[in-house]
């Protein structure tokens, strides 16, 4: 963690956009690609993940002093697996349709790197209040990404949103969008769009840092860019 103390609002907001788990950090890609073929599935997945992330963050933040450092990862995974089992059973009892649609991917929330990552990086070091904010922000970021992908894929792939048709009779659905390749393409295009946007933003700032030859900025990583701005 950075030596600088973060404010509560930073803890909350960071996960939503600046460090969005899916779009920026590319964590939790399996569910983001696999179950976003309809908006309804995306919502169910996001809700289940929200519950698991929030529950395990709170619990781990509460018991962080009891977990020996050597076995902390296993302990986190056990806690996460417990919450996932809970979600699995609750969904099976209350929402059997969604449970059937999501199938094995409910159980696979356990291995969502995003959840384990937040435990290791945040909940195991900070007080409960902050852990709740961080988990909330990250889960909202995850939800935004999933909804974005779900909407994109359902609108193009089935011509509907949440099952309601939005185009007229003449619309020919792009079936490929609800099939596996559509998942890759959708996220790919979203990422391309994001980096295009960032490039444009950077180009707007470029006039003040003229001493750098053209093309250097685009070849180097983020750290370099940050340094350049300071200079």
């Amino acid at each position, binding site marked *: 963690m950075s030596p600088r103390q973060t404010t509560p609002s930073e803890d909350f907001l960071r996960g939503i956009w600046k460090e969005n788990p899916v779009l920026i950090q590319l964590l939790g890609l399996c569910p983001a690609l696999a179950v976003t073929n309809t908006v309804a599935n995306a919502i169910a997945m996001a809700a289940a993940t929200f519950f698991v992330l929030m529950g395990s963050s709170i619990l781990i933040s509460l018991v962080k002093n009891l977990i020996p450092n050597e076995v902390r990862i296993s302990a986190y995974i*056990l806690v996460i697996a417990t919450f996932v089992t809970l979600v699995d059973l609750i969904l099976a009892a209350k929402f059997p349709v969604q449970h059937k649609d999501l199938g094995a991917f409910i159980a696979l929330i356990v291995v969502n790197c995003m959840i384990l990552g937040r435990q290791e990086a945040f909940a195991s070091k900070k007080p409960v209040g902050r852990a709740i904010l961080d988990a909330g922000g990250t889960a909202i970021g995850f939800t935004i990404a999933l909804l974005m992908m779900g909407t994109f894929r359902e609108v193009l792939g089935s011509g509907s949103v949440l099952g309601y048709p939005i185009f007229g009779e003449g619309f020919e659905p792009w079936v490929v969008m609800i099939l596996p390749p559509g998942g890759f393409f959708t996220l790919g295009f979203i990422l391309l769009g994001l980096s295009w946007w960032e490039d444009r933003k950077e180009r707007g700032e470029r006039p003040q840092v003229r001493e750098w030859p053209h093309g250097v900025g*685009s070849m180097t990583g983020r750290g370099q860019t940050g340094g350049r701005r300071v200079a």
Partner: protein
Amino acid sequence: MSGELFFIFISALLVNNFTLALFLGLCPFMGVSAKVGTAVRMGGANIFVLTITSIVAWFLNTYILEAAPYLRLISFIVVIASLVQITEMAIKKISPTLFRELGIFLPLITTNCAILGLAIFQTNRGYGFWEGLVFALGAGLGLTLALVLMASIRERTELSAVPSVARNMGLVLIIAGSLSLAFMGFAGLFAS
């Protein structure tokens, strides 16, 4: 029986390829697919862990979890985590070069959906010992195939003039989508 096994194998290898059709094991797919050599080794490590996982999951399902099915997920993940730990120690001992190259991705096999996914699919479909084993081999080879294909393509894009907006993962995802599209052609392989 053997026809059935062959069907399971080809289905896991091509038709329902773990990475390209089911989105399992994406972390190594994105992370270790920059060089063909590393991709092959990562695939090998995956085949190894998948095979052992299949045997262990079958054992747990048959002899232990009958009494308490709600503990399935928790016991699977614990067993897989310990297996990966053992694999890591074995590889460190046998091939330090490979160990260094795999780096962070070996422990990350624990949070690799493919491993847990295999155990869960195997359970849901009620596979027996041999079926599970063949399924694991097919899935592992399928993962390796996808990794190697991806790595070969990425090695080429390294040298070509890629537009600057596509310099990060966007390009990799588009390539993955095209590969996935190609693999969909295998869907007609079996009329089922």
